[in-house]
């Protein structure tokens, strides 16, 4: 390579790095800096947020009413995560057992709906679950029930919506775990006299634990912030943390409080991710998952 060529490569690399850093500054770091700054400002109905700096926003986060919202939100997200795991685990297992072409087809079938905006799909669930929705029409029409069942604007509806939107995020890491699980290991456990339940408990479950942990986090963390699902399907009572934040910005117009709440949520998620990294390292050390034979 000539000196000139090397210089070109260098300048190209500098260009790419500059662009990436610039994008990160503009789209990620600057907005977060603004939110952090706003969270320490004083609310003002006319100018949204004004000086002086104060901790009022964070004090409001600690109000008992928001504890209730917090725990309810945590509860809804946790249920949705568990349901995703229960549906996603066997689904991922079946996917991983397919020959490559069948797996590709099944994955595409799973992903196709997700090319539609999730807001629109949430509206579709609303149509299905409503008093005059598809399910109730069928149930009433066939005479199984007299009165339509109330499904919309309940916890149930929120959980259905969350599961529907987030299921693929559970399936993908689980599938990766199942792919790594060599058939030899289940055969070896069978060979050594383990029945189906023992094989699952002693071999399959521990070796897919990293996928379970990853899948649960990837579902649980965003679930808490999916305000539009709770907005459309949950009614006034079933709020997620995302709804509180949205309302502070768009309805109450208390931007410092909304910002403080956002920062609190981010810090909590970061803490959970950190726990994930620790747990993962532990599982990997226990499992020797870096082993070439796996």
């Amino acid at each position, binding site marked *: 390579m000539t000196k000139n060529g090397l210089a070109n490569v260098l300048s190209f690399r500098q260009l790419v790095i500059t662009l990436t850093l610039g994008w990160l500054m503009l789209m990620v770091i600057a907005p977060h800096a603004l939110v952090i700054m706003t969270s320490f400002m004083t609310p003002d109905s006319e100018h949204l947020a004004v000086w002086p700096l104060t901790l009022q926003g964070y004090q409001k986060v600690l109000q008992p009413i928001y504890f209730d919202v917090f725990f309810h939100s945590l509860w809804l997200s946790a249920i949705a995560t568990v349901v995703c795991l229960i549906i996603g685990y066997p689904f991922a297992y079946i996917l991983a057992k397919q020959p490559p072409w069948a797996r590709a087809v099944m994955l595409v079938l799973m992903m196709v709906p997700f090319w539609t905006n999730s807001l629109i799909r949430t509206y579709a669930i609303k149509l299905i679950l409503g008093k005059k929705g598809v399910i109730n029409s069928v149930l009433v029409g066939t005479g199984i029930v007299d009165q339509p069942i109330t499904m919309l604007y309940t916890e149930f509806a929120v959980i259905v919506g969350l599961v529907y939107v987030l299921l693929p995020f559970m399936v993908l890491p689980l599938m990766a775990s199942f792919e790594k699980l060599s058939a*030899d290991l289940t*055969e*070896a456990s*069978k060979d*050594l006299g383990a029945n189906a339940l*023992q094989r699952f408990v002693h071999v399959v479950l521990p*070796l897919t634990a990293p996928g379970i942990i990853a899948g649960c986090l990837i579902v649980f963390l965003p679930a808490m912030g999916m305000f539009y699902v709770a907005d459309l399907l949950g009614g006034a009572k079933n709020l997620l943390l995302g709804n509180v934040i949205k309302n502070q910005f768009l309805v109450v117009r208390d931007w410092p409080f909304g910002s403080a709440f956002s920062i609190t949520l981010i810090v909590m998620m970061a803490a959970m991710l950190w726990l994930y990294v620790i747990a993962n390292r532990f599982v990997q050390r*226990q499992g*020797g998952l870096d082993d070439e034979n*796996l």
Partner: protein
Amino acid sequence: MADAEVLLSLRKIVKGFGSQKVLSEFSLDIFDGEFFTILGPSGCGKTTVLRLIAGFEQADSGQILLDDADIAAVAAEHRPVNTVFQSYALFPHMSVAENVGFGLRMAAVTKAEIKQRVAEALAVVKLSGFESRKPHQLSGGQKQRVAIARAIVMKPKVLLLDESLSALDHKLRQQMQMELKQIQRKLGITFVYVTHDQEEALSMSDRVLVMNHGQPQQIGSPREIYEAPRNMFVADFIGEINVFDGVVEAENDELSYTVNIGGVKKVAGAEFRLEVGDEVHVLLRPEDLRIEYIEDQPKDEQGFLGKVLERSYTGKTIDTLIALENGNTLRASEFFNEDDPDFDYSINQRVWVSWIDGWEHVIKAGPLE
């Protein structure tokens, strides 16, 4: 092994995968306490036989008798048979002791007994003190030993080994071959070993089954397989072989014939009756050929003339490639002897090739059975 009892018997096993038939009417008897090896090229069905015995595959039809009881319908986890996998298949999340004790734990054996039996099994494979290691902290050879310990601790009636040594390097493999043989003798467990490596098969086994395309080709002691191959496939697959095509010209004595090999007449013994006019292959191992100077050829003895193509020194032997005048190429292998002046040939030197009568092995020409 003459007085040994049949422990495991496969009768008329048929097994196909989709449209591809792997085994058709495959039958096999394995004796109690023997080291039995199934040898064949990849895709010959040997691994399928092993998996059928283990219970990982179900036969389409046929019987698998273990101690005279049909186990074909018994699930793998209930068969008194254990497997050493080619990949070792150690549970990566368990320690060595947990791996070895896994089968006993599944069988609800008491903790004290598990501990004792695990220690015994690890002692057999010379891995005492490795109890708390994890598989990823072990070398390939150590993993191999853990896999063997994990299987023998179950005291199976039959131990199945699937190309178990193929992942090890040459030296370690030779050492493990010896140890496997010792372990087998010590424990008295029947070993069924599957391999494509003929050297491994010959060095470890009491009996060897050579398979090709799902068909048994020959079953016998390593010596029989090597010295008296029944057909060209076995002759070719086991070691190096020189083939002389000939026609039976006369019967001299019982099972002794004069065979005309491209004009050269040789007396050859056969193990079965031949008719005059039969086409035969006369087979000779490289170490059974004799290379002589042209001028040393006795007038009354017939041999083959050719010239030296290539010489290679292997340490133990000197191997010579000879192009015969009839177009054949021979490979001869002679033990090195510095004191023997006859031993020195140069490339392109004309030589005379012969063998001691009786060292040849004759099989009928024609399609493989």
